[in-house]
């Protein structure tokens, strides 16, 4: 018999987890979904963001405040990464996907090693007063450890989406994905637009990192376990669909929570890929992507 409180709590937990997944996937939705750069180092950048937040939290700062402080340095880091990527590949006549994958794979290894050297290999976590307590609403018991980071997802995604859809520079970012040459004719430098977009994507990593380290402890190699899920979210949402990535992440979160509650938690890692396969079979361009 299905207990209503277990069902309700599973669904809410799934929504919260999905929202955290969406934060993790946002940067990839920009770099891979919009710019078509297969930045598989993004989950590792998220972990680097978590360590940035951890460092500032040692001085008594709240993780969210620490993440806001990290936006600028991570934006600059993203710009620097794109300049490197662009000089290595794009100026030499276009980036081969395999070469790009190799570059970002190597980058993620370098970041992991630097984090391990700098912070050691042990788990790091943040201590905040709200971690460990829960909000009780009738049958629902919602851990603040999930609730607070989950709220970051829609806020950040909403802000990025508003920027991309309501500002000229945001429109330029979306345009560069479709027709780079037309952007040049309009007098804009596509490389500059991409650099800015890559900076924004990397800046989201520090906020996602704050969410990640609030949910649970983090170690330098934690990004490896997120790669599959975040790619599934971006691809299934439809390349470049920012709100779609939130919706898909929540669907995956709920599905994982229900599978964990009613079937077997061991099956939950396969949920994202099962949904991906099913979704792509029904709609190859992604559930929220435009047909091209």
């Amino acid at each position, binding site marked *: 018999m299905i207990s209503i409180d277990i069902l309700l709590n599973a669904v809410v937990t799934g929504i919260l987890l999905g929202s955290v997944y969406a934060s993790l996937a946002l940067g990839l939705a920009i770099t891979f979904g919009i710019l078509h750069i297969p930045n598989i180092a993004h989950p590792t950048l998220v972990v680097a963001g978590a360590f940035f937040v951890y460092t500032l939290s040692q001085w008594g700062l709240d993780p969210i405040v620490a993440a806001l402080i990290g936006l600028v340095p991570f934006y600059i880091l993203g710009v620097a990464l794109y300049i490197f990527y662009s000089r290595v590949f794009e100026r030499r006549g276009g980036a081969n996907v395999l070469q790009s994958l190799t570059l970002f794979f190597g980058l993620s290894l370098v970041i992991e090693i630097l984090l391990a050297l700098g912070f050691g290999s042990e788990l790091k976590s943040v201590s905040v007063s709200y971690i460990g307590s829960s909000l009780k609403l009738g049958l629902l018991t919602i851990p603040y450890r999930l609730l607070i980071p989950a709220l970051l997802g829609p806020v950040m995604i909403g802000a990025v989406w508003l920027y991309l859809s309501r500002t000229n520079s945001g429109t330029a970012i979306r345009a560069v994905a479709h027709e780079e040459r037309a952007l040049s004719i309009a007098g804009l430098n596509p490389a500059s637009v991409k650099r800015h977009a890559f900076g924004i994507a990397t800046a989201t990593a520090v906020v996602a990192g704050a969410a990640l380290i609030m949910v*649970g402890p983090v170690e330098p190699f934690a990004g490896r376990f997120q790669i599959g899920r975040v790619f599934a979210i971006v691809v299934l949402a439809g390349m470049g669909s920012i709100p779609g990535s939130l919706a898909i992440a929540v669907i995956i979160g709920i599905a994982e929570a229900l599978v*964990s509650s009613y079937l077997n938690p061991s099956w939950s890692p396969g949920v994202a890929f099962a949904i991906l396969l099913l979704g792509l079979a029904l709609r190859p361009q992604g559930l929220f992507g435009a047909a091209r």
Partner: protein
Amino acid sequence: MMKTRREFHKLAAATAAALAAPAFVGSKVFAQDKPIRVGASVSLTGPLASTKNGLIGYELWRDDVNAAGGLLGRKVELVTYDDQSSAANVPAIYSKLVDVDACDVLFSPYGANLSAPVMPFIKQRDLFMIGMFGLAGNDVAKHDKFFHSGPWGPNSGRDWARGFFDLAKGQGVKKIAIINADLEFSKNAAKGGAEVAKEYGMEIVFNQSYPPNTTDFSSMIRNINAGDPEAIFIASYPADSTAIIRGVKEIGISDKVKIFGGAMVGPQYGALLSSLGPELNGLVNSHTFVPEPTMQTPAIKGFFDRYTPIAVKQGVDPLGYYIPPFYYVAGQLAAAAITGSKSVDPAKMAAFLHANSVDTIAGKIAFNEIGDWKERRVLMVQLRGIKGNDLEQFRNPGHQVILDPPSLKTGDLAGPYNKARAS
């Protein structure tokens, strides 16, 4: 002067013999001077890198042995490689250690997950190996030249956590829940635990595994509560251990639960002890060494007096209770086997360890036929009286009270769990 072909061949043979002679004549001396090579893979990077503090144990042992004149008059040399915490790297590393580096003694990688791939190779090549924390690592291969440095045994697959179930039985527990990570060690611990629970007539009301790196256990904790157990046995890894302990605090657990924990990896390490602090109160968990009066000896104290400053300098776990002493013990076992058998022949070394007990910094160790310790020595400790997040408090007795085995016991179980948690 002209030489015939025959004369030339004679001259060439004589020259070759003259050149080769020193090598044959001096070969005995050279072999005596050649260091004894001890090979191991260590997880310096990757998810298991928190175990790399074990390397300090190896190095302290090597330095001690060499300072005392080596083994059989030969210097001891460590040959180590980083396996990156990946089982895929292990077979190639051990092939190189044996075939290229010509190691005389092998130490296994850390834990069951990484040790499993090397066991068929060790068995096939009939090599001598000291196992490093691979639970039930030799239960399948049953290789007679494999010995555990950690206190696994006897019958470690089944009885590794028997102490937890003995304590539960002592509390009159009839219903138990078991959860475990989908990894070799946790699966073995949970499987053995389930067998012991059945042996003691306990009903297993919830028995489920979960994938590694699960971050939220709220659904599972609710399902456990629905089963109304009186004991909860958990076999988890560090990140999950943290999430489970926090999940229990967030969701709550029934007052009927008398004992909680068992085989949670993580609360043995300084990083988790410090980060979770008082949230660990009441937990009953496995350990290999704690600074309780029944375990403190001059030898182990001397080890930690040297380990701690090195660990602090290297930025690894400054407590180092769980792993590093047993890496030193591995060296002591190898040294005993070599000096006792006066040989580096695998068969002779293994025969010596099977026939003799060895004095180590962790006490006297004797082995059964598959290299398990003959005496059950995994500790079940209860964490108590933890205040704040200061790591130094864990160096004092009374915070990790030994409940089992009876020979090392320093206190009785405080329960039920919710009461012990709040104290």
